[in-house]
């Protein structure tokens, strides 16, 4: 028992250490670690923060960034009522059809439609953004080392460039971005930029934290369920390990 456990733990520790080592030295300095309600075994998303984060996305980021993998009805999972979701969707137009005349037509988006992006295609996005492509944000938290800390770091990282740093025109100094020259103009610039409906003070760090929370949910909407099921599965397995160990001892005791 003890030996097997040691072997198993050693093997996983080795694997983790190898991956950790492989990660540690890549690129820019790791973004500072923030507190997130959804980390840890019992971590869950904070619904109020998710809704505030959606507000930030809706009011600010959605001007440039699509959220391709979400449908409007997914917002019900973060506490919006079906009527509210319908209202949010109706703010956007989608192309539908063909109708019985064979014509495509525009209609307001419905809850079952995917989020409508700001640009019809990547070329249009580049043309509007000085050649830079604002990436789809639906997976950005999973697609970057550091996850939510990185997104928070980017949004709060627009500081004055150190003396002597040569900035390329059309880029902005960002302490977190690899290479420090990002083509995104600072999106969060003033306290109170977003009018929170729940009375929370919309400071820049607060907005950054909220939108990073929302984007974490967008990347991993099943996290709450995963943590919940995981806890039960692990509890079950702990019991199974105990029972089977006792059974093993009993069966093998016949040998001695």
């Amino acid at each position: 028992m003890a030996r097997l456990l040691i072997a198993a733990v050693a093997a996983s520790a080795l694997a983790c250490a190898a991956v950790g080592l492989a990660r540690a030295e890549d690129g820019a300095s790791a973004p500072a670690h923030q507190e997130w309600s959804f980390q840890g075994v019992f971590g869950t998303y904070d619904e109020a923060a998710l809704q505030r984060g959606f507000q930030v996305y809706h009011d600010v980021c959605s001007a440039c960034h699509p959220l391709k993998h979400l449908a409007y009805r997914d917002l019900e999972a973060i506490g919006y009522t079906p009527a509210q979701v319908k209202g949010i969707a109706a703010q956007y137009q989608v192309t539908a059809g063909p109708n019985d005349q064979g014509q495509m037509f525009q209609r307001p988006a419905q809850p079952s439609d995917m989020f409508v992006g700001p640009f019809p295609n990547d070329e249009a996005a580049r043309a509007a953004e000085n050649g830079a492509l604002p990436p789809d944000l639906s997976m950005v938290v999973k697609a970057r080392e550091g996850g939510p800390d990185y997104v928070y770091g980017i949004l709060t990282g627009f500081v004055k460039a150190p003396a002597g740093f040569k900035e390329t025109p059309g880029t902005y100094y960002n302490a977190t971005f690899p290479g420090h020259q990002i083509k995104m103009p600072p999106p969060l610039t003033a306290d109170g930029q977003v009018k929170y409906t729940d009375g929370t003070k919309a400071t820049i760090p607060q907005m950054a934290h909220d939108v990073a929370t929302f984007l974490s949910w967008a990347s991993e909407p099943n996290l709450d369920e995963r943590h919940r099921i995981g806890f039960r599965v692990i509890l079950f397995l702990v019991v199974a390990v105990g029972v089977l160990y006792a059974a093993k001892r009993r069966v093998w005791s016949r040998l001695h």
Partner: protein
Amino acid sequence: MAPPGPGAANGRITRWIDYRLPFVKVMHHELYEYPTPRNLSYWWNFGSLAGAMLVIMIVTGIFLAMYYTPNADLAFDSVERIMRDVNYGWLLRYIHMNGASMFFIVVYIHIFRGLYYGSYKYPRELLWMLGVVILLLMMATAFMGYVLPWGQMSYWGATVITNLFSAIPGVGHDIVTLLWGGYVVGNPTLNRFFSLHYLLPFVIVAVVGLHLIALHTHGSNNPLGIDHKGPGDTIPFHPYYTVKDSFGLAVFLLIYAVIVFYAPNFLGDPQNYIPANPLQTPPDIVPEWYFLPFYAILRSVPNKLFGVILLFSAIGVLFILPWLDTSPVRSAKFRPVYKKIFWLLVIDVLALGWVGAHPPEGIVVTVGRIATFYYFLHFLVLFPLIGKLERPRPLPLSIGAAVLGGGSVPVAERG
């Protein structure tokens, strides 16, 4: 001793079937009575764990394939659909994705177990070689599986690895075109990789079958590395090893579950959540962790062809291992010198893994070269040499005697 189990063919129907197709009888013999050394340690659990992993991979894979779309324009989104819209799709995918890692951890431990206890020696040479075939098939399967989600690492990993074949003189470029189904990695590549990714696991099942037939012909090796000679040395597989394997499986699943539920992306590369983009090379292209030591060997020499030859030799050398080892003693327990170099090899392979994870610059290159050199030195020089020069410690008379207390005999007198 074991309690008397139910006879092989009791009921009338079972007897009728067994007379024509001895299924129950064979199963009873191989899984129930099957005499097994009584002294197997927990290192012997990893074989059954590998079998469990193979089943888990096939079951989750078949369900994933019901929703997955093997088309370069749709594959990435279809995997995301599985993650978001398919009921428990995230669970299926995280089990499958991390299952590949768990499978390799288990199989690597299983292989090192074999190396330590000399399980590749007479009369288990074919058993060992079939194991190496399984490893190769697993590597091909995992490589092609990793291409399926069609993220950045899928695409660029596929590009780098398939390009290796172009180093083969003469036919290299034709082979690459054949692998790609065209002149670039693209939709035809994805299609054939999906087809093969579905096929190869079943080939693995077949080879595992042969592996088990070979195993059951002479039985398991054991920590003492001596043959079992009589009933005092063995116990029936059931219930002793069924219960021990079940317990091991539960411990293993516990660790696996912690990863799947609480760190499902820890072993993966974040880059693979960015859709494949042929126009944008990622900052560095790193294979999955289980390929890192081989990747390091590949890159240890500046010449591509030579690198590829080394890569294949690194696995090829395992095939001829039974004939490289000249020692009459199996278990490292009784081989003081071999025991030391065994651990050196473990360290060497870990070092290669570290090298494989880093861009080949400066110290990384040096360590990579030394470690690659040592890898081959270990098998091609030290193995035959130490077998001849080393003085093994005396072996116990029998497994039973060793377990229950008894004398030992010098190697020369071993039967």
